[in-house]
């Protein structure tokens, strides 16, 4: 006898959903038989707004595309504009950019720690990691003046130099975090219940992964070494020393292990940039932004964000406003086709768990 299937809506108002989106599930018993992602609850029409704003005004908008980690957006946009215009960026600015990106990655991973554990019902973990994330945000506040939206990496360099005493403070924070991450390991990764929950859940097929468009940590969790920082090095990543992990498995547990490894790598990179940072100018001055025209052309740039490859396709038509800025976040694929595929056959308990492990962030899907 066939069980009757029920429709279950997860979201948009649901504590388990990441952000503001909806997953419509067909459920038989406890098992999902069909999943459908509904997005559009956060659509602001950024790409339309950028058509109306000039190049510098658009720069204040791009960071709002992805809230947990705005810096890859800024960096992407700035780099695309520089590539079209042919503007040079001082070496120091590049180092500062890399440092900012890595700090943002750490902050994003700390938020992920919270989300992953919270969706599994371990509420102590978000309290710790989101609390510790504030220390990174403090660094950002010192550096840029803003906790969440920094608007710091702009075309031609960065907006301001490192404040006095920043290096010491940053290094101290890194030391503190490294200690804390060991404690997180005890709470989360050594926890047998978490291991039971995470192993064998939400498996991505290794052979299909690249074709499906999987990027970032989920792809590395399938055993495929792929990272924009090595494949298509930008800024000064080719001068830094870091490892990119790849582990076989493809389930939530492997993705978690990858992130656990990468957060340590990021801490390491921040230390390196602080050590190696040369002196000199930190930005290449742009002309009066109202009259600042970019020659016609287009550029496709990408950055490795905490959730995967973040790509910008920017087209200029020679005026002082961008013709088209198209943003593709990792969640554009992860949150729609991949999620719809992965959820089939899983337990309802794991829906939110899998979403968190993929890092589904709806503002990237609809912008």
């Amino acid at each position, binding site marked *: 006898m066939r069980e009757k299937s029920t429709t279950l809506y997860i979201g948009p108002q649901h504590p388990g959903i990441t952000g503001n989106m909806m997953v419509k599930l067909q459920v038989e018993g406890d098992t999902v038989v069909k999943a459908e992602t509904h997005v559009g609850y956060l659509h602001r029409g950024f790409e339309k707004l950028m058509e109306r704003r000039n190049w510098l005004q658009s720069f204040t908008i791009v960071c709002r595309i992805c809230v947990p980690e705005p810096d890859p957006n800024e960096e992407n946009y700035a780099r695309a504009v520089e590539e079209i215009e042919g503007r040079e960026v001082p070496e120091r600015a590049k180092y500062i950019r890399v440092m900012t990106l890595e700090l943002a990655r750490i902050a994003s991973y700390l938020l992920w720690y919270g989300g992953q554990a919270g969706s599994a019902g371990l509420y102590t973990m978000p309290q710790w990691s989101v609390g510790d994330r504030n220390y990174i945000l403090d660094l950002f506040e010192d550096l840029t003046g803003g906790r969440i939206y920094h608007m710091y990496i702009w075309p031609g360099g960065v*907006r301001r130099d490192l*404040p006095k005493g920043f290096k010491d403070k940053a290094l101290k924070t890194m030391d503190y975090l490294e200690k804390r991450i060991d404690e997180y390991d005890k709470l989360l990764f050594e926890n047998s219940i978490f291991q039971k929950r995470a192993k064998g859940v939400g498996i991505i097929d290794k052979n299909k992964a690249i074709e499906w468009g999987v990027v970032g940590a989920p792809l590395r969790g399938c055993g495929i070494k792929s990272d924009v920082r090595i494949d298509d090095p930008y800024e000064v990543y080719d001068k830094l020393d870091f490892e990119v992990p790849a582990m076989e498995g493809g389930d939530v547990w492997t993705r978690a292990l990858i992130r656990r490894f990468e957060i340590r790598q990021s801490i390491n990179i921040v230390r390196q940039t602080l050590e190696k940072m040369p002196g000199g100018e930190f930005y290449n001055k742009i002309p*009066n932004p109202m009259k600042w025209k970019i020659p016609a052309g287009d550029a496709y740039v*990408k950055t490795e964000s905490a959730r995967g490859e973040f790509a910008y*396709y920017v087209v200029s038509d020679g005026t002082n406003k961008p013709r088209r800025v198209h943003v593709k976040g990792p969640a554009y694929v992860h949150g729609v086709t991949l999620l719809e595929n992965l959820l089939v056959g899983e337990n309802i308990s794991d829906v939110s768990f899998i979403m968190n492990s993929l890092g589904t962030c709806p503002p990237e899907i*609809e912008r």
Partner: protein
Amino acid sequence: MTDTLNKENKLLEVLKEEFKLLSGKVKRSRRVEVVIENEQIIPILLFAKERLNYIHFSHMSCVDWIEEGKFEVIYILWSPEEKINLLIKTKVAREGEDLPNIDFIWRQANTYEREIREMYGLPFDGLVGREEFILEDWDEIPPMRRDFITNEYVSETYFEREGREDAKDVREQILGRTDEKLPDFAKKYSRD
């Protein structure tokens, strides 16, 4: 510099032999751009995927060139081995023409196509999927077309709080400045 672009040039050569390219160039290292007629989209995508191993479909975008009356659609592929992004561009008329559906080659193209269909009103031949992807009950012209003026729509539809109009004055003021340099925010507000 020429040595480092070997891979890219080779790819361009291969594509030139197989297909009638409208134009093709190496933009920079790891970026190759070709322009092609829109009938040849499926052949070139299949060729790139099956023969050249460009198996990762990274991006698909659309630009509205209203002056020419055309949409430009860009398919961006990535080869994990060669580590090259291949940009395939094609143009299609804004009204009356459609593009082939490619979601049987890459499943995730379906999402991009649905978005482009919704935001630009560009139909894809044989595309299956819910009509509404991002917008809900939208009955204006598709919003990403350049002839859709968003601020006019806003002033008709939504309420505006008083005081908002100030922003415009500041903008004209800055624009009125001739030869004046941008205030040096970076140095002015740095703390040391």
